[in-house]
């Protein structure tokens, strides 16, 4: 990968024979062993590894569930209960998969907001960032279709509301919705195709993740200072430093995950989804899963169907333009006093939107949703472009090493002296 030549030297004759035919060991070595990692990375940089673990966990539990699940409207709900009651450890597989989706989103939101705080989307990481936005979109589509599969009341009405979003498109909207449904309403054909796509999309995510990691390894990791690696002393080799840290963080995250699975497995779900789908009755209060709530609040804040759909889509699309909306040349919020305040204000607005998305669409909640929605877009479209022009950033350190020696962020000060000089550095 990228320009830096691998330092991998095959030792045995068999390894040499193999390497000259498929140099995969060298690729792994240069990407995950010798790869230079900024020595001041915090635990916020372990979420990429956690996310890869979660994707793998979801695929494995999902494949096992698919061996027992029946994607047919009259049997889907029963087959999920069959998994819960009759299949050996079926309850565990299902709770792992259902809560795994939430854990996946917790990790991805931390990962995204870390990128926003430290300016990880700025040149030369624009493509890396956009690939991340694509992964996020695919994750949302996958999670949505997965939630439909148990065919409970929330599944059915969630599917109805979300597919109806497409009917807002002028002229071709109704045709598109009918192609999504495979019928005149959400029904068995819809369920069957959602199952097929729910099985497909994670593998597409895995493909984009490969591109994401590839792009990362071309441009290198950002770090809490935002200052690039300038010499070998700024970096440590991926193995063992990042490897062990990623593994440790992943294990801690899995313990957190296990707490949900074993102690409050239904806390993040909705009781209504244990009622079989009924096309004649909508639950009095329908809400999406927690990870969609901010976007749902934006949808409901706009008193116009097409406008609401466009605003909700725009809230995600705007992320892809972030590298160009932020005009500041300083990456890390640690050196941007004003941006840091706006960043936290933005975080509060996102959490507020999430809370509002779970509230009924009436009275003060609607007004609050509109204010928060407005601020969401103002942050991206007004604040970020202007801030780069008016803000005076704090002086940047001359190198990562300088901040480490000054005892600031990073915590790598205790590294053995030799460790910093090892990795091969590209320009």
């Amino acid at each position, binding site marked *: 990968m990228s320009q830096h030549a691998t330092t991998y030297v095959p030792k045995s004759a068999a390894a040499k024979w193999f390497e000259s035919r498929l140099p995969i060991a060298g690729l792994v070595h240069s990407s995950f062993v010798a790869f230079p990692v900024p020595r001041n990375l915090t635990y916020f940089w372990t979420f990429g590894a956690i996310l890869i673990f979660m994707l793998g966990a979801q695929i494995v539990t999902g494949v096992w569930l698919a061996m027992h699940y029946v994607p047919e409207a009259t049997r889907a709900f029963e087959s999920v209960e069959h998994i819960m009651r009759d299949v050996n450890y079926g309850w565990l597989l299902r709770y792992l998969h259902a809560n795994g989706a939430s854990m996946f989103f917790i990790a991805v939101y931390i990962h995204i907001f870390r990128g926003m705080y430290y300016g990880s989307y700025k040149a030369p990481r624009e493509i890396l960032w956009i690939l991340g936005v694509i992964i996020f979109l695919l994750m949302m589509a996958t999670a949505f279709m997965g939630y439909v599969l148990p065919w409970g009341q929330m599944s059915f009405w969630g599917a109805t509301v979300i597919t109806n979003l497409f009917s807002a498109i002028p002229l071709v909207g109704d045709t598109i919705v009918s192609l999504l449904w495979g019928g005149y309403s959400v029904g068995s054909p819809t369920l069957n195709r959602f199952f097929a796509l729910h099985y497909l999309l994670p593998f597409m995510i895995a493909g984009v993740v490969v591109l994401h990691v590839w792009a990362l390894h071309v441009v290198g990791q950002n770090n809490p200072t935002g200052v690039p690696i300038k010499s070998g002393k700024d970096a440590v080799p991926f193995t063992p430093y990042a490897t062990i840290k990623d593994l440790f963080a992943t294990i801690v995250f899995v313990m957190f995950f296990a707490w949900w699975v074993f102690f409050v497995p239904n806390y993040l779900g909705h009781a209504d989804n244990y009622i079989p789908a009924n096309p*004649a009755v909508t639950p009095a209060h329908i809400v999406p899963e927690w990870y969609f709530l901010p976007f749902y609040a934006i949808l409901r804040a706009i008193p116009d169907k097409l406008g609401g759909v466009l605003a909700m889509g725009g809230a995600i699309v705007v992320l892809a333009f972030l590298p160009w909306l932020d005009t500041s040349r300083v990456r890390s919020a640690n050196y941007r006093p004003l941006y840091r305040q706006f960043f936290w204000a933005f975080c509060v607005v996102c959490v507020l939107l999430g809370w509002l998305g779970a509230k009924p669409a009436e009275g003060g909640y*609607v007004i609050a949703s509109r204010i928060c929605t407005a601020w969401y877009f103002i942050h991206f479209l007004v604040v970020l472009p202007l801030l780069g022009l008016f803000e005076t950033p704090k002086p940047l350190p001359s190198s990562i090493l300088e901040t480490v020696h000054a005892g600031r962020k990073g915590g790598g000060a205790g590294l053995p002296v030799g460790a910093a000089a090892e990795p091969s550095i590209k320009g």
Partner: protein
Amino acid sequence: MATTATAAPPATRRDFLLIATGAVGAVGAAAVAWPFVAALAPDAQTVAAGAPVEVDLGPIAAGQIVKVFWRGKLIFVRHRTDAEIKAAEDVNVATLPDPQPDSARVKQGHANFLVVYGNCTHLGCVPLGNEGAFKGWFCPCHGSVFDTSGRIRQGPAPINLPVPPYTFVSDTKIRIGEESKTATKTAAA
């Protein structure tokens, strides 16, 4: 027309092959894409299940709303009271978001029965009957308010609850899924 710039190199056999191959390939790709898209559309079984259904109006008391399904879609059959009919008719149609007189939404001579699709035109939830400011329907999902004619009055829904095709077979029976071609005949009879 046939003259090209003299500086341009003459077209070679390879140019011809590239264009011809590209054109045939593009047509082929489009031809293959068609069945894939068409297979997403409602299949023959689903379409066949959309045959008209008959609803007996006899047991529906005044003020009652009955839910029936046609083509998997929910339909409200509402036996309106005189007060509800009056409320639906006494409206300045021009002020409505989707202007339609009540008379255009019921069959002539059968104003006591309103037949409309039962999914909110916003995002498809089932509105609750006899609720909301106009005592028509209120959608709990996103707050759309419909009147006793199923017309949108407040909230995000863009249009009125649509009226499905249906016809009165007799005074106490309707057939949903078939637009009346015998309207004039019934009127004459």
